[in-house]
């Protein structure tokens, strides 16, 4: 079974060392000449180095959406768990219901609303919708409810701390593992996002990697002139997934913890 999961990666690694002609020779699973460096050079010079722009865009969208979504979710999760305000239960019930709304059904109407607000084809069209993370709010509410005793917050208030300070200095440090989990998953969701940027963006200078690589792939298959060849696309795919795999391996304990928070009590 492990072979099934890993073999495509082995193929990708081997294929990224071949030039375009080498790809069509027999023996797809073994090396045939070493052109990896050439491929990387080609990748970063194709269409005036637009791949680097896509890489930067993906990173920018992931960091801004991830940090923003986590901060907003933490504030809301804390309020739902520890503060009493009118409408709290109604809003939380609404949130639980809306977690079930399929994201893809919202992309088209969001596009139409964005186009009325003149925000289509700007970075905001990708970032603003990604800041909404109802599931993150739910996870953080559960976690804060479980891990922070009211007495701890009370003590800080008696010491004269303002409400935001209590949140920042007492609550946030206590929920760091959950925060990292939500951050990791919102960043990955944004890095992997395809449908939203596909619909929102038409300027290829704003594309993230997912949308950019697809346009290369489309024109390579269709045989339109001027676009990247297969060896460049394969190397581009490899370069796009290596940072994610490294991040996942390094942050293992967080994603494993995160999956557990979500699925199991």
């Amino acid at each position, binding site marked *: 079974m492990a072979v099934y*999961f890993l073999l495509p990666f082995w193929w990708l690694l081997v294929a990224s060392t071949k030039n375009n002609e080498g790809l069509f020779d027999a023996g797809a699973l073994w090396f045939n000449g070493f052109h990896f460096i050439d491929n990387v050079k080609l990748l970063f010079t194709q269409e005036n180095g637009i791949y680097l722009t896509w890489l930067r865009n993906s990173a920018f969208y992931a960091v801004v959406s991830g940090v923003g979504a986590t901060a907003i979710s933490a*504030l809301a999760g804390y309020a739902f768990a520890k503060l009493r305000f009118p409408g709290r239960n109604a809003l939380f019930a609404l949130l639980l219901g809306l977690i079930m709304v399929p994201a893809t059904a919202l992309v088209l109407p969001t596009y139409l609303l964005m186009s009325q607000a003149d925000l289509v084809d700007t970075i905001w069209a990708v970032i603003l919708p990604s800041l*909404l993370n109802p599931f993150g709010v739910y996870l953080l509410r559960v976690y804060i409810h479980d891990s922070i*005793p009211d*007495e701890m917050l009370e003590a800080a208030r008696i010491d004269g701390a303002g409400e935001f300070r209590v949140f920042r200095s007492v609550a946030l440090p206590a929920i760091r593992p959950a925060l990292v989990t939500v951050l990791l998953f919102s960043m990955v969701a944004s890095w992997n996002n395809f449908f939203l940027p596909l619909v929102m963006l038409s300027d290829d200078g704003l594309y993230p990697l997912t949308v950019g690589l697809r346009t290369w792939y489309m024109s390579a*298959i269709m045989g339109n002139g001027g676009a990247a060849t297969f060896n460049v696309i*394969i190397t581009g795919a490899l370069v796009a997934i290596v940072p994610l795999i490294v991040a996942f391996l390094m942050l293992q304990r967080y994603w494993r913890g995160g999956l557990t928070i979500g699925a199991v*009590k």
Partner: protein
Amino acid sequence: MTQVQTRSAAVAPAAAGPTQRRPFFGRAREAATGWLFVLPFAVLLVAFLLLPMAYAFKISLYRSTLIEGEVFAWFDNYQQAIDDPLVREGVLRVLIFGLIQTPVMIGLALLAALLIDAATSRFSRVFRLAAFVPYAVPVVIGTLMWGFLYSKSIGPLAWTGIDFVGSDTVLASLGNIVTWQWAGYNMIVLYAALQGVPKEIYESAKIDGAGQVQIALRIKTPMISSALVLATLFTIMGTLQFFTEPLILQPLNPGAITQHYTPNVYAYNQAFSFQQYNYSAAISFLLGAVVFVGSYIFLFATRKRSALR
């Protein structure tokens, strides 16, 4: 959430009634702070969830033609969608896809989770990572990779002589991509649930003479049924919205992967290839409603085993 209750019950004597509980923190101020804290989230919820939903519903009730302009058409678009053979074809396709792919993938994930739960720690660590890595790959890139692997000219599977993107094989090939991408994720979820089962239960079963296989099937599997239910639910929800994989593989065989291959692909093409926004909104809204209602019914029917109570 039982843990929470016991914990707060243990400290209950220390806390007084709600009116005395917060002498330095008035109720009005607490309410104001609470709203201030949820405000950014509430604004986003309205702007990017409720408003688009309401807007989609509104435009789905209109019809736009060159002669008449925008006219209110009641539920004509929905009627058209229900009668549309292309919608039916797509719905039937994702249903068949889901009925086969979901049990295969969840079964595979369960088998893998049971195996690594019983295996030695080093092997299970390596295997867990190997199976999870595909999840870290963006769906677009995973699909691109498999597109190359399926390729007759450069793929390593060419020796099999199978046309992986032929009109009768492409659905299975898409199923393979989805399984490859998500089986490891589900396996980790199920494995984490297995870790939560108290080990004493296995001991007593062993004393009663149960073998490893019996323990796995009769004790472990029922004990993690809530995680199984959730994993199945998320898979079904994903299946109905099937979009990225067929869209990416489309250029490989446009004759087989049509513009109406799945309801979501159809809605996308109606909007962005034919500017039929009203009809597209009706399809999207219908699909969203089916996923929403379907997952509620599924959770309700299995609520005894579900973690989302």
